[in-house]
């Protein structure tokens, strides 16, 4: 059933959100976001199958490209952070507050 795929996608998406809001490790947070994108991709493909149109496939490719671009930048930032503090704790980076 297509719905099963979609529900799986929802579960993965929610787990991704959970990762973002509960973890302090920069990598984990970032990978959780990737997980959310993957969940979206799954939904795209499921819908694509549902409608039997291949537009969804193209969209998935685009999302992947965006994910890749974001990943490149995010990793560059992670390196920068590590240079500054040697830590990957997001809570360490709270100089800007109040």
């Amino acid at each position, binding site marked *: 059933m297509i719905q099963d795929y979609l529900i799986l996608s929802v579960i993965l998406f929610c787990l991704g*959100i959970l990762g*973002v*809001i*509960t*973890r*302090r490790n920069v990598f984990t*947070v970032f990978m959780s976001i990737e997980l959310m994108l993957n969940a979206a991709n799954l939904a795209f493909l499921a819908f694509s199958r549902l409608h039997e149109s291949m537009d969804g496939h193209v969209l998935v490719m685009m999302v992947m490209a965006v994910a890749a671009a974001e990943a490149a930048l995010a990793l560059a930032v992670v390196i920068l952070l590590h240079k500054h503090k040697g830590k990957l704790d*997001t*809570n360490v*980076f*709270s*100089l*800007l*507050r*109040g």
Partner: protein
Amino acid sequence: MEHTATYIGLIPLFPLVGALVLGLMHMLTCTKNPFPEKLYGILACVGPLLSFFLALVVYYHLKGLPAEERFLSHNAFTWFAVGDLQVNMGFLADPLSSLMLLFVTFIGSLIHIYSIGYMAGDKNFGKFFAYLNLFLGSMLILVLGSGPVVMFVGWEGVGLCSYLLISFYSEDTDNVLAGNKAFIVNRIGDLGFVLGMSFLFWAIGTHGFDYLSLKANAHNLTPGIGIAVCLLLFIGACGKSAQIPLYVWLPDAMAGPTPVSALIHAATMVTAGVYMVARFSFLYAHFPLAGSIVAWVGILTALLAAFFGMFQKDIKKILAYSTVSQLGYMFAAVGIAAYSAGIFHVFTHAFFKALLFLGAGSVIYALHHQQDIWKMGGLKDKMPKTYGTMLIGALALSGAPLFSGFFSKDEILFSALASGHTGIWIIGVLVAGMTAYYTFRMIFLVFHGEPRDKEIYDHAKDAPPVMTIPLIILAVGAAFAGVLNLPGIFGGSLNISHWLAPSLVEHHPHVSIWIEILAIVTSIAAFAAGITIAYRKFGHGAEEPEYTGFAKFGYNKFYVDEIYNAVFVQPYKAVGSVISKFLEPNVTDIHVKLCTWLYQKAGKAFKVFQVGYIRVYAIYMVIGLSLMSLFLSQSLK
């Protein structure tokens, strides 16, 4: 005809211009090199004398007209006109106002002359005459005004001048306070006047707001509004003419220079209330209830003031209370619709009270501003002219037969009796006796007996002619003014009453001659009783008694001033400081303060949420999402 009418406008103008000129002269030069006093004196007297002259012209002009057409009116210009309200700067000379004019200008001129002597050497000589002229001008506007609003101009003007003149010696705080008191109390009255006018306007004034139109429309007045208007106007009169409960300012007003007391607080300004009631006789005659309230307030004031007068030791205070008391008589008269009697008493009172004040002024002048009668004594040898004239004044005031006061007072008492106001009559007779008592108490203590203060006594002498001549002229008036309105029983023909008749709405009751005789006999008896008691007690010199018991109560004027202070003045101040110290910062401003406080607190509180953690920011987002999802899930069904 035309010309005479325009003259009316000039009558008040002369003193006003005089005031302006004198004021400017004084204002511009007083700190450097003032003009000589003589110049001021002459300039000051020009205005009143010219006015007096014109007043005579007007009088004779009116006299030449038939009784029913005896009025001249002149609208100088439209003062203001808004909607139905049309107020002209108009002047009206009719028998009533012409009579007032005559004696106001006459006595005013005399007092001006007198003051030249009295004020000699004062550094504010010019200012004094400027004020005096201004006062006279205002009084003339009051008298001549063709409608209530114009009258109000003069009404307030005299109040202002009274303030300025009472606080003339302004370095002394008490004097200024007395001035303030006078002005404020007068203003309380003025409030009544303004409100009365306003109600009157909306009731009957929309077709013209001058006396003639009002008189023509007076029948449209409903009793409720009518009585309200009468009473409100009477509050104004109470303020100006020092009746209960607003009489308190007048005794204090004696702080001013004595000629001022003579002019303002005896002869002219204080009678404005009586004049006003007489002016509005067409209202008061319509509503006897209002009239009798006026009469009762008047006679009670007369009683109270006479009572206070019996215990005073300041010569001017005695005269002040006597003024209040006499004013009470006048109100009693106008209250019972005996308008001409009231006005006649105003007329005679102007003479003898001005005389008494000026005489007292001479005494004070001679004794270097000593006013305590217990410090005087035996002055009759030192100051014969003063003594003689003051004696005449005292006799007139006390109602000694054949003096002017006798006729006017008798006219009032007779009217009270004749119109059935027996209570007023009884009190009136009593007050007559008391008047005789306190007047002669004063005369005896001042002029008879042994000198109590030798040093003062030695320096005393009669005033210069510029002061004594007015005294003598006034004395003649005080003695013989009564002749002008001699009642039938004395072979006269009530000249003044007849003269006034076209201006007033009054009915002369026809009563038997016996009642008239009864009235005369009782007043003479009262006079005799009063003077006898006074002679017994003070005729041969007496020492200042200790005031005890009731006398102390009377001497302290029943503590009315203190009560007023405690009931009105102090609470007023307290409310003021409560407002500015407590209410204003803590209560009225509370909405501002509260908002500010909340605002700042909220700002601080919200700062806490900006923790700086990415995770927390994400949590905010997700919480928001979550709430919205809940909301949207509802709408999905």
